[in-house]
């Protein structure tokens, strides 16, 4: 479920977001629930996972957010994304009461200067308070998003960010390298600086992985880490679905679904989306056909991000034999009885290795 509303659009963001449309929260939730109703026949009675992402879902007026959550089918894992400054005790309790099992906090950094570069509204204190509120409300599965490679972030600042995150003992961490995406305000302001720092920041990825695995986290996906726990699998079950090539239904503006051989993308325009659903019609969609070869290429690209072997049978058609020989020869990937997996060094070069392996 895509909830696009944000209090402020950060300079580096290239997601579908909407600011300053507070009056439309109710209409949007109406539309989402109507779209859900239209697609209901595609879904099982009880879902494996639900993910409410954004935007900033917790910027949505709380009664509307609660109304949305109440209208969702039952699900084993329900994640809601939130920005720290929006998580009050009241919000935390309301989410818990509405059946949310997991909260993903967009922290990004703990240093005021770096947060300013990213144009984030939360301060370090907000993060600690948000985690406390969530724990108090009974959440036992919290994920923190961090960004590294921020202009001005030296190795010491990186270490401080990681230490501050670990101190909060989250069940899950997502760590992304800051990308200067073309056309964003951030790239305009900082692209040049990022390029200058590229060499100095080359080993940040390795530092992140080393720090988190030393702290007992499992590096289960390229950018994702979860606490080792004998009783629970703390990986993001929802995102695992993407990486394992499962079907999914996306609702809301700009939302993407993959159902069998078809991928569809809803219109990113709020007005058109609201108008279509107000008239009882599905929103305009872009369709993409996924043939077997494409599906296998995606399986390869996504599956190799995980720390578990990818069964060869699933990617036979997508594999370049010469490329496979090259990367295994270079010690970047290995074939085992269970399938193909990347070595540690291979995982740092996962993108390039995938290009080699892909036919």
């Amino acid at each position, binding site marked *: 479920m895509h909830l696009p509303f944000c209090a402020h659009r950060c300079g580096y963001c290239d997601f579908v977001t909407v600011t300053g449309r507070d009056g439309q929260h109710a209409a949007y939730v109406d539309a989402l629930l109507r779209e859900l109703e239209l697609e209901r026949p595609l879904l099982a009675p009880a879902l494996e996972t639900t993910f409410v992402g954004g935007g900033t879902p917790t910027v949505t007026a709380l009664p509307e957010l609660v109304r949305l959550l109440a209208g969702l089918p039952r699900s084993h894992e329900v994640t809601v994304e939130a920005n720290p400054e929006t998580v009050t005790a009241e919000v935390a309790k309301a989410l818990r009461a509405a059946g949310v099992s997991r909260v993903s906090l967009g922290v990004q950094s703990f240093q005021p200067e770096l947060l300013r570069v990213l144009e984030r509204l939360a301060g370090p204190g907000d993060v600690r308070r948000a985690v406390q509120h969530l724990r108090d409300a009974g959440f036992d599965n919290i994920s923190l998003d961090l960004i590294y490679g921020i202009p001005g972030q030296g190795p010491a600042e990186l270490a401080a960010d990681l230490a501050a995150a670990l101190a909060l003992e989250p069940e899950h961490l997502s760590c992304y390298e800051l990308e200067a995406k073309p056309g964003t305000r951030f790239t305009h302001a900082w692209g040049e600086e990022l390029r200058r720092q590229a060499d100095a920041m080359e080993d940040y990825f390795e530092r992140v992985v080393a720090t988190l695995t030393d702290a007992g986290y499992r590096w289960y996906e*390229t950018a994702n880490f979860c606490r080792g726990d004998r009783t629970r699998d703390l990986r993001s079950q929802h995102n695992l679905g993407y990486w394992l090539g499962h079907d999914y239904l996306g609702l809301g503006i700009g939302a993407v679904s993959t159902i069998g051989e078809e*991928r569809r993308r809803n219109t990113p325009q709020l007005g058109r989306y609201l108008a279509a659903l107000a008239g009882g019609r599905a929103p305009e969609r872009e369709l993409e056909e996924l043939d077997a070869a494409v599906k296998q290429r995606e399986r390869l690209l*996504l599956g190799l991000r995980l720390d578990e072997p990818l069964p060869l049978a699933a990617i036979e058609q997508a594999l370049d034999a010469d490329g496979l020989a090259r990367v295994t020869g270079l010690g970047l990937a290995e074939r085992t009885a269970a399938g193909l997996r990347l070595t540690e060094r291979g995982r*740092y070069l996962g993108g390039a290795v995938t290009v080699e392996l892909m036919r």
Partner: protein
Amino acid sequence: MDQSKIRNFSIIAHIDHGKSTLADRILEITEAVSARDMRAQLLDSMDLERERGITIKAQAVRVSWKGHELNLIDTPGHVDFTYEVSRSLQACEGALLVVDAAQGIEAQTLANAYLAIENGLEIVPVANKIDLPQADPDAAAIEVADLLGDDPTHVVRISAKTGMNVDQVLDAIVERVPAPAGDPDAPPRALVFDSSYDQYRGVLAFVRMVDGSFSRREELQTMATGTRFDAEELGFFTPTMMPVDALTAGEVGYVVTGLKDVSSLRVGDTLTSVARRASDPLPGYKDVKPMVFAGLFPTDSDEYPELRDALERLKLNDGALFYEPETSTALGFGFRCGFLGLLHMEIVRERLEREFDLDLIVTAPNVAYRVKERDGEWLEVHNPAEFPREVEEVEEPFVKASIIVPKEYVGAVMELCNERRGTFDHMEYLSPERVHLTYELPLGEIVLDYYDQLKSRTRGYASFDYDLAGFKAGNLARVDVLVAGETVDALSLIIHRDFAYDRGRLLVEKLREEIPRQMFDVPIQAAIGARVIARETVKARRKDVLAKCYGGDISRKRKLLENQKKGKKRMKQVGAVEVPQEAFLAVLNIGQGQKS
């Protein structure tokens, strides 16, 4: 036509000094073309020529002026085509020497003016662009008159753009250029000053009848190559083709030969009649040899047959182009091509890419070397990869270079020429401000970005031209490049031993910048024989991942990787290393940093 009423002339000018505009204006004034039909710059028929402001192939147009028949023979304007220019000039009795009144004489003007003087042509000096505010017609007139030993008042001052005084140019041609003086009753002799190929009619010869006459259907023969054919059609250009029954002494026109290959009809050869054969050919025929060589390879090796067909077709129209198959371990199957010079190479490359839609890798150009091997045998080497590692003696081609610059750049030019193993020959002041320098330089140094350097060190003010001046011994060595331990044949080069270390170092530095970081360390070495003279390392990448991959992004991320995969196919695989095409031209940049 009565020979006394014929005037044959060319226009000599530096690029952009107004040759084509003047030609257009002449056609207009003589009503050969109505202003309405006038396509600007009619004589330049190829798009490429039009874009570059140069003329590759000569043509001839006949116009009438005050009871006279004037034949304007167009000449190629560039150093690479000196031989063709000289043949065009040989077909004339006079030449207009056009100088931009704002710029003065340039090296190219000089070179062609000397050619015209050597050919005994009457030169009519013209100062053009006098309408421009920055024009200094008096200074230009004095400069030109000095060059010709003429009086500045004889310089016709015109504006080809506005048409001002162009009639005076035509009058001057009639008055000053001598009429042809061949023997109309002698066995026929015609000079082939150019040729072109037409898909339907075969080879078209552009000729100047010197003696006697040809008639339609007559069996003709070239005297140097011995090729025979029937003159399927005779005629001249107005500029459209006008067939005639005969071409007579003094006239300029064309012969439709029906031949299928331009190489059987060489520029400079003499045409005669089989039935009334002349005893001696006209002087000046030379078998032009290519001096600059480069490897041409299809980026996609599947395009090899297309490249072969394209070269075959280009060759039909370009007798100077030479090619033979070449196999490179780095670049696969391609052709080693020979060109008259760098511009000729650039033109061929562009035509292949534009007209034949080919995607090419062109290796850095090199010159022809003469090599004496241990066994005393001399051989000519066109490819550094075939240059023997052990040689007794080597000779390389030299040129006599002519450079004109404002006096404040004389030092910079001398410095550049010294760096490039030049020998100073001569210096003179053309005017108080401008200096003409001549140097003897190895051609191999010129193909190595000399011209770019000259332009940049003189802020674009230098003009440059050269003439081949034969082979001379040189202390040259073959330098090989090894990437990840493997010799990359397409990067081998021949360097003077004194420069081997400096240039070897620059080359590996350049390659380190050009070769993207791979998934492992890549050493790059330059070596003479087994001796490594320079080394650099492209450090392995440490990270390369897509930051996020979730539901909404998957198509985009997949396409990103698919595009990277396509990009890799455009790179050449040297062992396990991907080398981008630009790297194969890195050699071209090693001349610059090297100051001894």
